[in-house]
């Protein structure tokens, strides 16, 4: 009804407005009548009537507003007006759009990645209903299940419409020369997820009964396209995965890559799992179950209902178990997206989010300053409009409309930039990671979607409010009286806001540059870091255990191979395994990192034995009860004593299932002391450098990883070795990795973060410099009259330059101080996120501060020189 009336008003609007005006005129006449009755002289009537009536135009306007869809109308007017003013100053508009667009683009790129991993659900049926489940025991979480558990869950858990299982193959596997990631899944996996096939068929429930004889495999669409050349008749072909023949039965639907953060290349039935994981599987399918169970919640079933049902089921399953294995609680993990969204994730991402957000902040404050300057330049126009009866809120709204109109194309630009940045970033990542890692990298599809677009729009809106609101409020502040008098240049109005914005920019800039500097120094330190072993000429071979002997024999024949060694845990690739021990002469049990190595290990990695001797061949073959300890271990176990000749008692009861290859004997005698080796990014005093080495040899222990020292360029030798081994022992080698690349891969995150931080810091610096330059230029043009007078009164150009520069530098120094303090404060936070980096690196701090200071001097010098060139006569004549 009301809307109808308003619409009617729009139709007959001219009449309505005439009537309203008429009404007010009559009102005025009545007022005049009364005044006349009171005996006011005729000549005074008009004026007095006006006085009583007030601003008639405004009353008219206000009354009209009641009827209108007023905001639409004024919005249209504002938009028309804004577009007209942009046409007049296209460079201004383009600069604003470009600056904001760039910063928005970077943030949107970050959000695209976040969106792809955390927010976008998998392309499966009802992704938000998918929950992985397990139960808690005393002090542990039980999430690995057996086939028996799966059967019972499918039958007993009616809160789920279906329960399926999967087990990721823990490493990549090589299949006919391709490195592939895969998983073994239960037969109902694809049907429960509603994922069909693009070619052939997917794994079906009946495949659960498949015997190991007929191994089948489903490829992902991406793998089929990228790794197998989208061969149209691939279904029915056989490929060899780790030497085992698998029949490809089909290709899964596009856009499906499993339910993890690494998109998978293939799936096999659970029955075929042991073919893929042989030797690699640390607990083995015969051991405790390793199936992950995922249930698809029935529609309408709440989480608490599901939990209650799970509790009953878990209690049933563990009723006969030992006390410590009994379920005392249940756990449900949402599995609808690659990475579940929670507080921990947000906290660990916060430095990144902050860095990107700060760049947007700088861009906004830069633009805010530009808007402020332009608004001040438009003071005359604003003053006139105020004196003609424009309401202040109306003017602010108009200025804000202008900001929003600038933000809208900036959002579009940002969206495009984000797409390009993500694409470029991924390319760059693949190009710069060590080759062995690049072959294994899988990235989920990062295409922006509606969420990214919405994010850009909202971010653009917020930016517009930020860079538009403050200048708008500031610019419409002048009192009517000043405007009437035509005095629009009252000093440094808006100065405090302007200075505040510059301080904020400098602060953020210093902060980002310090971070970049710290990361650079950190990665430089790590690159030159002595890990205690020489990886330069060493290759690690991932070999299947059943081919171990053949490979070792074959390697001995290769001319490029200098030494062959084997180790249970390889440095950098496998973490060392801690077992409980008691050193002689002490009563307390302690944990010590342990590995089993062949005598050649020390020469392959060039680990010097500081004292004592190496294992002999006989000791290695018989697995004698001797051990070599690292210096750190010797110091830790027997401080101020000679470790040589001491014994260590190996305690039973190592809980870690990965430690099952640890020596089984009771005591071992120390025969040598090796130099410390850091197998990773732990600090020097970390127990990681403490290690016990036990003897083995390559022929008897087939479950060890192989390392060889080669002659020549290791990567090329590695390729040659791969070829000749593939010929001699087909399917035996999964991968040959140069240890040099492994170390490079270890350092890669630091380099990547350094580049991101320096790009952001560089951008911040450019924005800050242009911001300072802009403000100083504006101030100089504002103060032209004053400077002219000073010069006329005898000020030298040096004193003019120094006065302007002093003004700029005062603000900069404040910003630098705040920035450095903030950096020191957040470095505490960073220190907890990034290991092995000295977050208080003095050089990084000084470098960043000096850089920003120099940049600020440079940015303010040009405007101040322009000020010094002001010709007093010309300026004064202009007035």
């Amino acid at each position: 009804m009301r809307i109808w009336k308003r619409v009617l008003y729009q139709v007959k609007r001219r009449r309505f407005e005439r009537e309203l005006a008429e009404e007010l005129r009559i009102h005025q006449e009545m007022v005049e009548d009364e005044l006349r009755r009171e005996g006011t002289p005729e000549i005074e009537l008009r004026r007095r009537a006006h006085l009583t009536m007030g601003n008639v135009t405004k009353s008219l306007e206000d009354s009209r507003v009641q009827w209108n869809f007023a905001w639409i109308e004024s919005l249209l007017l504002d938009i028309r007006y804004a577009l007209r003013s942009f046409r007049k100053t296209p460079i201004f508009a383009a600069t604003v759009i470009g600056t904001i667009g760039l910063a928005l683009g970077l943030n949107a790129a970050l959000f695209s990645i976040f969106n792809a991993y955390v927010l976008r659900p998998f392309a499966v049926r009802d992704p938000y209903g998918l929950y992985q489940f397990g139960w808690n025991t005393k002090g542990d979480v039980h999430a690995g299940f057996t086939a028996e558990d799966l059967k019972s869950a499918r039958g007993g858990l009616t809160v789920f419409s279906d329960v399926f299982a999967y087990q990721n193959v823990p490493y990549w596997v090589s299949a006919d020369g391709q490195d592939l990631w895969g998983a073994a899944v239960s037969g109902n996996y694809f049907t429960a997820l509603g994922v069909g096939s693009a070619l052939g068929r997917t794994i079906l429930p009946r495949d659960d009964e498949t015997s190991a004889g007929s191994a089948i495999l489903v490829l992902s669409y991406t793998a089929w396209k990228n790794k197998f050349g989208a061969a149209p008749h691939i279904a029915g072909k056989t490929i060899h995965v780790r030497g085992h023949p698998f029949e490809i039965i089909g290709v899964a639907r596009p856009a499906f890559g499993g339910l993890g953060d690494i998109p998978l290349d293939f799936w096999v039935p659970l029955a075929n799992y042991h073919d893929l994981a042989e030797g690699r599987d640390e607990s083995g399918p015969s051991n405790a179950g390793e199936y992950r169970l995922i249930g698809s919640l029935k529609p309408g079933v709440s989480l608490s209902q599901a939990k209650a049902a799970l509790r009953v089921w878990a209690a049933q399953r563990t009723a006969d178990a030992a006390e410590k294995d009994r379920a005392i609680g249940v756990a449900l993990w949402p599995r609808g997206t690659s990475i579940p969204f929670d507080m921990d994730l947000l906290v660990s991402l916060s430095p990144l989010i902050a860095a990107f957000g700060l760049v947007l902040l700088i861009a906004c404050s830069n633009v805010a300053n530009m808007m402020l300057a332009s608004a001040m330049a438009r003071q005359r126009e604003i003053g006139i409009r105020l004196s003609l009866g424009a309401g202040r809120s109306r003017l602010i709204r108009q200025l804000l409309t202008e900001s929003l109109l600038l933000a809208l194309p900036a959002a579009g630009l940002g969206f495009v930039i984000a797409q390009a940045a993500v694409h470029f970033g991924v390319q760059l990542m693949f190009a710069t990671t060590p080759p062995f890692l690049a072959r294994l990298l899988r990235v989920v599809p990062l295409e922006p979607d509606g969420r990214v677009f919405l994010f850009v729009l909202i971010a653009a809106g917020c930016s517009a409010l930020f860079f538009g609101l403050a200048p708008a409020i500031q610019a419409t502040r002048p009192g009517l009286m000043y405007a009437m008098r035509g005095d629009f240049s009252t000093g440094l109005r808006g100065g405090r806001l302007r200075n505040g914005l510059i301080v904020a920019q400098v602060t953020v800039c210093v902060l980002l540059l310090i971070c970049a500097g710290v990361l650079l120094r950190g990665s430089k330190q790590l690159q030159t870091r002595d890990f205690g072993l020489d990886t330069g000429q060493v290759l690690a071979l991932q070999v299947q255990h059943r081919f171990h002997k053949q490979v070792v024999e074959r390697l001995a024949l290769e001319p490029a191979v200098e030494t062959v060694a084997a180790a249970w845990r390889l440095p950098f690739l496998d973490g060392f395994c801690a077992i409980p021990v008691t050193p002689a002469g002490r009563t307390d049990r302690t944990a010590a990192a342990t590995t089993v190595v062949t005598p050649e290990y020390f020469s392959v990695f060039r680990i010097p034995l500081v004292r004592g001797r190496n294992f002999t061949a006989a000791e290695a073959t018989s697995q004698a009860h001797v051990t070599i300890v690292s210096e750190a271990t010797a110091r830790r176990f027997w401080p101020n004593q000679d470790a040589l000749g001491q014994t260590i008692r190996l305690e039973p009861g190592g809980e870690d299932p990965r430690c099952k290859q640890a020596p089984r004997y009771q005591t071992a005698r120390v025969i040598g002391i090796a130099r410390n080796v850091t197998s990773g990014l732990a600090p020097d005093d970390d127990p990681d450098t403490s290690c016990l080495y036990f003897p083995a040899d390559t022929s008897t222990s087939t479950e060890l990883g192989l390392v060889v020292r080669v002659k020549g360029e290791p990567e090329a030798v590695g390729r040659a070795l791969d070829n000749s081994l593939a010929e001699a022992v087909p399917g035996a080698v999964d991968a040959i990795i140069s240890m040099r690349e492994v170390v490079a891969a270890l350092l890669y995150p630091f380099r990547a973060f350094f580049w991101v931080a320096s790009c952001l810091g560089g951008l911040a610096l450019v924005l800050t410099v242009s911001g300072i330059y802009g403000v100083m230029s504006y101030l100089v043009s504002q103060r032209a009259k004053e400077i002219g007078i000073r010069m006329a009164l005898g000020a030298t150009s040096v004193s003019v330059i120094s006065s302007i520069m002093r003004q700029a530098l005062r603000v900069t120094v404040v910003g630098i101080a705040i920035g450095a303090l903030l950096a020191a404060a957040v470095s505490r936070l960073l220190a907890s996120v990034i290991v092995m980096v000295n977050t208080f690196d003095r050089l990084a701090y000084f470098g960043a501060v000096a850089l920003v200071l120099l940049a600020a001097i440079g940015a303010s010098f040009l405007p101040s020189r322009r000020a010094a060139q002001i010709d007093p006569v010309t300026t004064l004549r202009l007035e």
Partner: protein
Amino acid sequence: MLILKTLSRGPNHGYGIAQHIRQVSEDALKIGEGSLYPALQRLLIDDCVNAEWGISENNRRARFYRITATGRKKLAEEKKSFEFVLAAIARVMETP
């Protein structure tokens, strides 16, 4: 509320409404045109009053506003809530 109350005594024009409120409140309440006319437009939209052109007491053309049934209902409601608030304020003020 004041406008509706004035109109409940009979149709009147804008000037008359302003005069009436001023006189009755003995100059304590003065409604300026700046708020009177916008308020009248609001009431028109809300169907609380309707308007037609007529001739005023001293033979001028004027727009007369007349209260409608909806308007009376609204007046009653507002009066009730006003009295409620007034009473509440009075109680607070009179509590020693």
